[in-house]
């Protein structure tokens, strides 16, 4: 018994030592940096709603060029890069082997940085391609495809050399992300450009991509992160393997049908709208399966929330996931859609998904991983706790202001005797609250970045001192 335990802990020790985690460091530190840079862009465009002349006469800083930079910068520069960095961390550990190639991983990170910097210049320069979420000009989109193939190859090669036969649910979600993203990205960025693809046909392909960018890229990548870090951070086993399978395979089948719900009441075939509504409502199945599994895993462990920042982010992210994925199916009902569609409610909903859910899950992972890979402790638990509350309060302020304002706006639009400009003026207080909430969120980002960078620096210093001593 004693020897068994001894060999198990020796194996665990060996398992710790095999990971270099260079790629993880590159991806996560880059992602955290872009989070702050693009956070400034976010504040500027929020300010433009309140002071429309602000930076208004400079073409490079006009709203219509900065908004796609905000969206693409947050989605690809911060969130996807963070999810990729975390994947480079947990896939080798779940497989019990080293990452297939650290060199390939670092090369992927360098290419990713080239992509994001090109995005900044091309989008502000007015070279946007013209599709929402697929705004990056074609040469940059080609680089994204190359980087994605490099990432996918490295991850799949690691999985194929795994020591443990059974693959954990995070591994499935990540494999799903890699496979689906390939086709979803090609559809939105390249199929839309094929000759003869115009108008409604092109819009339908665009929505297939836009919707599934969230549903089949950020959702499975974020759930992979949550499925790994919730049991890790709470030190408790996942509640149900079967439930995770139900959640995964229903997501795989249901999500892709729903793109046309972005054109409800619009010029697109009625039957296609109805199909998208039916499948949108069915999305409740994978969502509730996942959320139940997360909540049940925490049974008897809730007291840990008090002093565990990662767990705070993970559990608030889970609650936001439940809420945002309740809103989504409800918006797709024609009667609700007639009020909220195209209003400020929708950015409220979108930010709860991308910031409240998936960025919270990614930040939980970053807070957990960074001290471990730099072999040190987090620079400040108390600052991390502050960052959580700033994100939560700023986020809730922004979401609720936009929901209330958007609902009111939709109600006014449906009364044609109110001139349109009056519905714009009426929203001014809402946009002011959104801007102030944005400042609170941005302070959260700054604390988060400061804490992560300080941890990395002190970890690096410890390592060089250790080398000097030996």
């Amino acid at each position, binding site marked *: 018994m004693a020897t068994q335990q001894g060999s198990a802990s020796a194996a665990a020790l060996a398992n710790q030592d095999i990971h270099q985690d260079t790629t993880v460091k590159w991806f996560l530190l880059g992602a955290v940096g872009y989070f702050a840079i693009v956070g400034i862009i976010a504040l500027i465009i929020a300010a433009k709603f309140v002071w429309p002349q602000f930076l*208004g006469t400079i073409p490079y800083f006009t*709203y219509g060029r900065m908004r796609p930079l905000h969206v693409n910068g947050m989605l690809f520069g911060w969130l996807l890069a963070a999810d990729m960095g975390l994947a480079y961390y947990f896939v080798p550990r779940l497989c019990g082997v080293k990452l297939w190639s650290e060199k390939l991983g670092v090369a992927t990170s360098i290419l990713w940085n080239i992509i994001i910097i090109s995005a900044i210049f091309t989008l502000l320069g007015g070279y946007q391609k013209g599709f929402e979420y697929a705004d990056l000009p074609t040469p940059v989109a080609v680089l994204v495809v190359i980087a994605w193939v490099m990432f996918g190859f490295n991850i799949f090669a690691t999985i194929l050399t795994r020591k443990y036969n059974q693959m954990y649910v995070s591994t499935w979600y990540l494999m799903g992300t890699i496979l689906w993203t390939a*086709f979803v990205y090609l559809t939105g960025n390249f199929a839309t450009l094929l000759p003869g693809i115009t*108008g409604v046909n092109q819009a339908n392909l665009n929505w297939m991509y836009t919707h599934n960018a969230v549903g089949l890229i950020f959702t499975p990548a974020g759930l992979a992160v949550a499925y790994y870090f919730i049991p890790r951070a709470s030190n408790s086993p996942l509640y149900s393997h079967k439930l995770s399978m139900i959640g995964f395979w229903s997501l795989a089948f249901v*999500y892709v049908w729903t793109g046309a719900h*972005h054109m409800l009441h619009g*010029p697109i075939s009625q039957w296609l709208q109805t199909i998208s509504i039916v499948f949108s409502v069915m999305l409740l199945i994978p969502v509730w399966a996942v959320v139940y599994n997360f909540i049940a895993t925490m049974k008897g462990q809730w007291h840990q929330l008090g002093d565990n920042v990662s767990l705070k982010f993970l559990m608030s992210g889970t609650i936001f996931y439940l809420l945002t994925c309740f809103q989504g199916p409800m918006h797709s009902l024609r009667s609700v859609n007639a009020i909220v569609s195209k209003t400020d409610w929708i950015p409220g909903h979108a930010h709860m998904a991308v910031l409240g859910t998936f960025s919270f899950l990614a930040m939980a992972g970053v807070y957990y991983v960074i001290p471990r890979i730099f072999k040190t402790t987090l620079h400040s638990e108390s600052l991390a706790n502050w960052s959580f509350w700033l994100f939560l309060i700023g986020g809730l302020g922004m979401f609720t202001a936009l929901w209330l304002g958007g609902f009111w706006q939709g109600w006014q639009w449906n009364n044609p005797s109110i001139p349109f400009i009056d519905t714009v003026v009426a929203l001014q207080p809402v946009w002011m609250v959104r801007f102030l909430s944005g400042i609170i969120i941005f302070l959260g980002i700054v604390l988060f970045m400061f804490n992560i960078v300080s941890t990395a620096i002190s970890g690096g210093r410890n390592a060089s001192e250790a080398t000097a001593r030996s």
Partner: protein
Amino acid sequence: MLGKTDKNASWFVVAALGLFFIGGLLTTVAPPLLDKSWSKPFENHDPAKGPTGKLVAYTDQEMRGYRIYIREGCKYCHTQQTRTLLSDTKRSGWKGVDSPVSTPDEFVYDWRQTFGTKRTGPDLSRIGGKYNKQWHKAHFNNPRDLVPGSIMPPFPWIANNPQELDDLVAYLQTRGRAKDWRPDNDYEQ
């Protein structure tokens, strides 16, 4: 079959892509084959069947204006769809005439779809012919001079560039014109 997927990566790949492609193909490739109005340009000469008119391809100048519309990200604040909602047909209307709803056959020549997801400013699907070039020039220079309370950004680099202004206005005047929907035919050039 799904039971094997957590131990066998090949089974996993087949199942994950198979399920994805059922919905993917049926909602992207099938619809344009089933609904011809997505690819057949609008044309109607019979007043009994609603608005008359014909969709024509863009001229070179309109196309240049279209590219400016995309370059400046106008679609992030302006939708171009009069939806099947009574209030949309009233708001897209002009001088007491309600607008017809937008149909797929009006957009067949659209090189970049501009339906939009957010309506921060008014819908532009029927903006064609409502305002003349002088109005647009003043409005692009500073929207608040004409519409107090507006939050549209100023576009002096377009207003003060005669070529770009002509191109962009030419594009805007095409919006909604295919359906000759105003009985007095009072379209501004």
